[in-house]
């Protein structure tokens, strides 16, 4: 079963992402490396010993709905209770509301562990985390006084209500309405779908964050406002009052994350209360709801990327363990008695090394993005802007690349298990099923790619991405001068990879400036993959360079360079030549 790779995660956040530097330079408050280790260690214990054993139970039972109430799988409620009693939900919240105010790198490291234990469990706190951030940045003091402390502790959970049947990727089409009341509150009406943990039995209240339109709001995304709508209204003394007019009318039957209830939420149907309309309060300004959402978007998208890493890690551990036990056939490198453990077969080794390398590459990208978020909160205005743009640049890559490899790695894991991989009882297939949703929600990976090429590359007139490439270059320079034979051909291949990435970036920038949007959009996804592949490969080199003596990291970097990053040139070609081929072929697709 999954055991949190505490040392590997610690190495990644400290030496690849840069937390150690931040600590040394006084950017991390009172945090010390010892404390980081102690926190990761204990989080790892909880994830390995408490959450992971519940994975299959959660999958088999799933959450169920009866009369508007959702029952989570057996043991889920106690698990959640123990988890918040451990203070884990409060890891990143502000101190004045009971949080520990720890950096995003640590929060993401912990997020990885919870989700590797069970992604269906990890989802709940992830949504609460989103609500906490929206509250912190935009909620009024009155709202904070009532809800914030309980959200920070996890005593109450948060849910995110964006999607409607006609409004998924395109939130401009959103129809839910909010009617202002005389007392300053609003009444919310509408239907939301696919709402994760929109209803459950783990806490006695849920704070729904809902996007809706005011009566006179402009059309499109500039007419959307954000509201806090509690499941139960809260009395002046903090006790729970009337049930609000919102309920769960249905649960989806899904491919994966069965324990996580995916709810259809009905607002303002008149089911509860004296008159129809769910009572809510504005968060931030009227018609600025999407902007409020954007402040938490980086974190939420990054957290989903981390789910990809989490699943990849869990799937890799399982596959490696299996490959050491299962015996079949002979192998030139096996001189023991009888059949060889399959881990001795070169084809299995390729699969397992691919799993390991992809996991670590994606992890490095995610934690580097988390580090950028942390750094954007300290230092001069100029520094803040630099790091905040860096975080914005890396967010779509972290989200899409990591969840893509999460699925790929889980699928390879099934392959390593052979027939047993296809059998549910083995516990390899669940990773493949659970991983799939992360490529879809929180902005599909296709939407991430468009965000990367259209919004992120042009930041600061291309200076942001250029500075990032400079940083990758300086890692390559270190690699060049390291003269470590264990790196094999890494230097040449990674350098060619970075050249391909730069050239594809220039090409995209030119096309954007020339207004050839069709080309830019067609190239977006292969470009995003190229970006992830090359930066991931270079981060593996950085990780190896930062661990003196240990050659296995250099060996893994070499494997990844010589077996994967050499595909960068092909991706560059796809970026630069893809659109023309679409144009002639796509006509056949449209009815």
């Amino acid at each position, binding site marked *: 079963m999954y055991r949190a790779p505490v040392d590997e995660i610690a190495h990644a956040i400290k030496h690849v992402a840069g937390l150690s530097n931040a600590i040394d330079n006084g950017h991390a408050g009172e945090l010390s490396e010892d404390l980081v280790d102690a*926190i990761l260690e204990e989080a790892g214990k909880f994830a390995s010993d408490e959450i992971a054993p519940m994975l299959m139970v959660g999958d088999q039972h799933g959450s169920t709905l009866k009369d508007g109430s959702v029952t989570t799988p057996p043991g889920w409620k106690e698990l959640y209770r123990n988890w918040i009693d451990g203070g884990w939900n409060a890891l990143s919240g502000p101190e004045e509301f009971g949080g520990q105010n720890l950096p995003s790198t640590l929060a993401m490291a912990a997020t990885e562990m919870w989700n590797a234990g069970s992604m269906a469990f990890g989802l709940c706190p992830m949504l609460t985390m989103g609500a906490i951030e929206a509250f912190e940045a935009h909620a009024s003091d009155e709202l904070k006084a009532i809800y914030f402390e309980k959200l920070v502790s996890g005593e109450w959970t948060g849910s995110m209500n964006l999607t409607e049947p006609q409004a998924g990727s395109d939130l401009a089409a959103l129809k839910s309405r909010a009617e202002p009341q005389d007392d300053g509150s609003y009444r919310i009406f509408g239907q939301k779908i696919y709402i994760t943990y929109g209803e459950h039995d783990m806490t006695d209240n849920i704070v729904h964050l809902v996007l809706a339109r005011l009566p006179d709001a402009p059309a499109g995304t500039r007419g959307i406002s954000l509201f806090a709508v509690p499941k139960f209204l809260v009395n002046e003394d903090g006790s729970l009052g009337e049930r609000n007019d919102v309920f769960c009318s249905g649960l989806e039957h899904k491919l994966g994350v069965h324990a996580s209830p995916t709810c259809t939420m009905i607002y303002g149907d008149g089911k509860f209360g004296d008159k129809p309309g769910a009572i809510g309060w504005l968060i931030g300004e009227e018609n600025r709801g999407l902007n409020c959402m954007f402040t938490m978007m980086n974190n939420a998208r990054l957290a989903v990327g981390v789910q990809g890493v989490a699943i990849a890690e869990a799937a890799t551990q399982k596959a490696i363990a299996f490959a050491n036990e299962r015996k079949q056939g002979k192998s030139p490198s096996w001189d023991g008695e009888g059949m060889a453990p399959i881990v001795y077969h070169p084809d299995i080794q390729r699969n397992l090394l691919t799993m390991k390398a992809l996991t670590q590459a994606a992890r490095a990208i995610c934690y580097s993005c988390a580090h950028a978020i942390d750094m954007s909160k300290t230092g001069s205005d100029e520094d803040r802007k630099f790091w905040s743009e860096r975080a914005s640049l890396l967010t779509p890559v972290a989200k899409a690349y990591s969840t893509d490899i999460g699925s790929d790695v889980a699928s390879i894991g099934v392959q390593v298990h052979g027939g047993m991989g296809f059998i549910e009882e083995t516990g390899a297939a669940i990773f493949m099923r659970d991983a799939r949703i992360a490529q879809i929600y929180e902005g599909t990976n296709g939407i991430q790619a468009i965000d990367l090429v259209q919004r992120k590359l042009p930041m600061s007139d291309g200076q942001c991405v250029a500075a990032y490439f400079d940083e990758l270059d300086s890692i390559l320079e270190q690699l060049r001068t390291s003269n470590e034979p264990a790196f094999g051909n890494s230097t040449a291949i990674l350098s060619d990879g970075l050249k391909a990435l730069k050239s594809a970036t220039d090409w995209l920038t030119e096309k954007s400036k020339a207004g050839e949007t069709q080309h830019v959009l067609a190239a977006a996804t292969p470009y995003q993959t190229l970006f992830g592949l090359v930066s991931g490969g270079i981060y593996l080199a950085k990780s190896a360079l930062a661990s003196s003596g240990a050659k296995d990291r250099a060996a893994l970097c070499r494997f990844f360079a010589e077996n994967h990053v050499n595909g960068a040139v092909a991706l560059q070609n796809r970026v630069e030549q893809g659109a023309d081929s679409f144009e002639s072929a796509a006509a056949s697709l449209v009815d």
Partner: protein
Amino acid sequence: MKVLVPVKRVVDYNVKIRVKSDDSGVELANVKMSMNPFDEISVEQAIRMKEAGQVEEIVVVSVGPQQSQETLRTALAMGADRAILVKHDDVVEPLAVAKILKGVVEEENPGLVILGKQAIDDDSNQTGQMLAALLGWSQGTFASEIEISGDTAKVKREVDGGLQNIEIKMPAIITTDLRLNEPRYASLPNIMKAKKKPLDEKSVGDYGVDTAPRLTVVKTEEPEGRKAGVIVGSVEELVSKLKNEAGVL
């Protein structure tokens, strides 16, 4: 009452142990280390006694290298109040540890010392007993239940073939067995607080103990792998094999 809980940093129980290539011992380079599981049970016991109002202060002590600090911090994060690290980089055998602990006891004057029954690295199962002898205190080893009232302690001991109930006089040495309790996880706020709890560093010299090993390790080797089994044709054959081949009947 003050309780003293000695804790040891050992190879983590999840790690697959490997013998060094020169057979001189167990591979410790780049191996995950953590608190001896029996010591976690001791710390938990002390915390429960404190929560029950029987104990005012819990002092944890470790004899070992600088990194044993992490183990002590773990105990502090679980709920111990104060820590002492007696720094020593080389092997310390149970007798030397017991002598050092005797020095600590004389300095701290605890009413009770709770130790793990053994450490999972060398499995000696000696330190607690030796400490009791050195101090001239009573001992209750392999405890699966402890009840303190006034100046006596009732200890339920896990012995071969069952449970033994004894009553001993305080101050006492108690060593813990697996079923005594289930140690808690340190909560995040307590991990943060542990950072600020006092941790004193001492050296072996402070206690005037000679730690020179009295044993020489000749060779360390992996246990022999399990041999393939045989299917017996009848109960008679089984009995005869057990008698004549295995020699266990």
